């Protein structure tokens, strides 16, 4: 419990510092936002008026506190490009991202863990060899390249799946698989090596001496032990998915948070960019926190400490 409390405090500090960092980073390019929004013919007075309107002339820390206050009341302002309410954008695009992210996250474990178990149990067989080759490939191929490759194969050539769009099940498959690929590859390796390491432990011999079946020993005892490091790194997988979502959502035209952020940055829509950066950072930081809680819960040795 102490460990979880300490991690929670640490997480709050990281959240605070990163929100300040994002705020300043966006401010440093604040002038661009103004010139991007106003026509080149706008007068100095018009520009100043616009800056005043956005509160850009106040000291940065004042702007920060004001912004945080508004965050807490869900008053996030509007997009500079299409006047959409930012909170509405969050719920709408957030839902899309959640669907895609959850699908990818699920695939990471639903595919990665069983393949890793298979490779460990049949180690040095052709099955192990193929799984490990797949894993190496999955880690080596950059996901934008994988995205283009799968679109070419499954959409353009075979015509089995749509190449882009939202939000049918068929449209979900390609972006989810691409988003999950590196996580699957890593999870396969980790599962395999954790299974093999635990299979060699003394406690396995004790369980065999107890007359337990191999199914129980491998499928329950060794697996549970092997899951400790995998669960502990589940949060990192979320972080990875969030990071890759920027690229994958853009390529597949999936209107999620990543796509919104990329578009906002390209159009210098700084209230949107600022808010969605904060959201994505919060997700990554909180998922690391969740990972740590998960690790503590998965590992009885840490629970009491």
């Amino acid at each position, binding site marked *: 419990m102490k460990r979880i409390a300490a991690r929670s405090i640490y997480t709050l500090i990281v959240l605070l510092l990163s929100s300040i960092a994002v705020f300043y980073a966006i401010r440093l390019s604040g002038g661009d936002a103004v010139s991007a929004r106003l026509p080149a013919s706008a007068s100095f007075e018009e520009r100043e008026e616009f800056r005043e309107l956005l509160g850009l002339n106040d000291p940065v820390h004042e702007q920060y506190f004001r912004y945080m206050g508004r965050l807490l009341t869900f008053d996030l302002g509007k997009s500079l490009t299409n006047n959409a309410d930012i909170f509405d954008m969050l719920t709408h695009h957030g839902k899309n991202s959640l669907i895609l992210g959850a699908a990818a996250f699920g695939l990471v474990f639903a595919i990665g863990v069983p393949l890793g178990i298979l490779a460990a149990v049949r180690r040095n067989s052709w099955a192990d060899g193929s799984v490990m080759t797949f894993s190496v490939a999955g880690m080596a191929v950059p996901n934008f390249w994988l995205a283009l490759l799968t679109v070419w194969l499954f959409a353009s050539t075979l015509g089995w799946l749509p190449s882009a769009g939202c939000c049918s099940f068929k449209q979900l498959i390609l972006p989810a698989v691409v988003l999950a690929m590196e996580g699957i590859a890593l999870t396969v390796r980790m599962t395999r090596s954790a299974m093999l390491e635990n299979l060699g*432990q*003394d*406690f396995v*011999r*004790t*369980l*065999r*001496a*107890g*007359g*337990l*079946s191999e199914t*129980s020993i491998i499928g329950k*005892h060794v697996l*549970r*032990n092997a899951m*400790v490091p995998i669960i502990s790194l589940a949060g990192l997988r979320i972080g990875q998915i969030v990071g890759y979502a920027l690229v994958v959502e853009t390529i597949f035209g999936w209107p999620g948070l990543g796509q919104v952020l990329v578009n906002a940055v390209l159009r210098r829509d700084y209230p949107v960019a600022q808010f969605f950066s904060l959201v994505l950072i919060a997700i990554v930081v909180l998922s690391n926190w969740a990972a740590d809680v998960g690790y503590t819960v*998965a*590992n*009885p*040795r840490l629970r*009491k400490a």
Partner: protein
Amino acid sequence: MSSVQAATNGSTKAPVLSVRNLHTAVATPEGSFDVVRDVSFDINPNEVLCLVGESGCGKTITALSIMRLLPTPPVRITSGEVVFDGTDLTELPERRVRDVRSERISMIFQDPLTSLDPVFTVGQVMTEVIRTHRDATKAEAREMSVEILRAVGLPAPTERFDSYPHELSGGMRQRVMIATALVLDPEILIADEPTTALDVTVQAQILERLRSEQQDRHMSMLLITHDLAVVASIADRVAVMYAGEIVEEGPVDELFSNPRHPYTQGLLRALPHVSRKRRELVPIPGLVPPMQMMPPGCRFAPRCPHALEQCWSDHPPHEVEAGVGFRCFNPQPF
């Protein structure tokens, strides 16, 4: 040989377990080597047989061969029999061996720190062992477990039932392992250096507990140790192992007072000189030859003060004298 041994032991009861000409080999890139060579012994009802020998001489591999728990590959039984209740365990399919494990022959291991599953509670594992072999409800299994945990001297057994191994001391973990091994009331307990990893004060308590459980349950025990003081205090019979072979075997009193084999004699002579804290067997000059360079005749010949010409080429046969079996061409008076 079993008839000879039975007669010389003065025991008329059939042994509960007979190991017959067991060979267990390890496969290496340089070839296959017998780490257990032509080992035969009986475990009689109600008796404690101690298997002693220097580290690496094949004690654990012998025990794992009986339990069919060898790390195969690279280690496997190449010939011989392990006869238990009329069947040769080496021939049984894995499925049937599992029925024997824990229910009829149990084994406990050297290192209680690593030998218990860290992510399950004591009770979860004990319950699973019981319910693998018996039709018991969870409540019944819990009752059986708590009772045996109490019997082996674990304090607060009801609470400990729900403890994880890391919450217990080394001595407590060894008691948990003993309790799990005894909960199904097996006929034989194999204990592989059960106290080596424990504090000196705890060692005596654990041995005492093993001895009393063995007597109360009319169980037989194969106790593996490298501590001759343990042997003297607990054994009915002793088998001395050297480089994968049993070189001498017999009742503890006769073997200790009148050893025939030069290796046993060396061990016993060295006993008073070694430190009192850890009486390990490192008494005789020279080293055990590596597996690849094992002499074809007597494996002890390179270190033996009494070696004859013949010892280097021929394998000494098994002989029996006053109830003690030994393998030596040139036995010496002690």
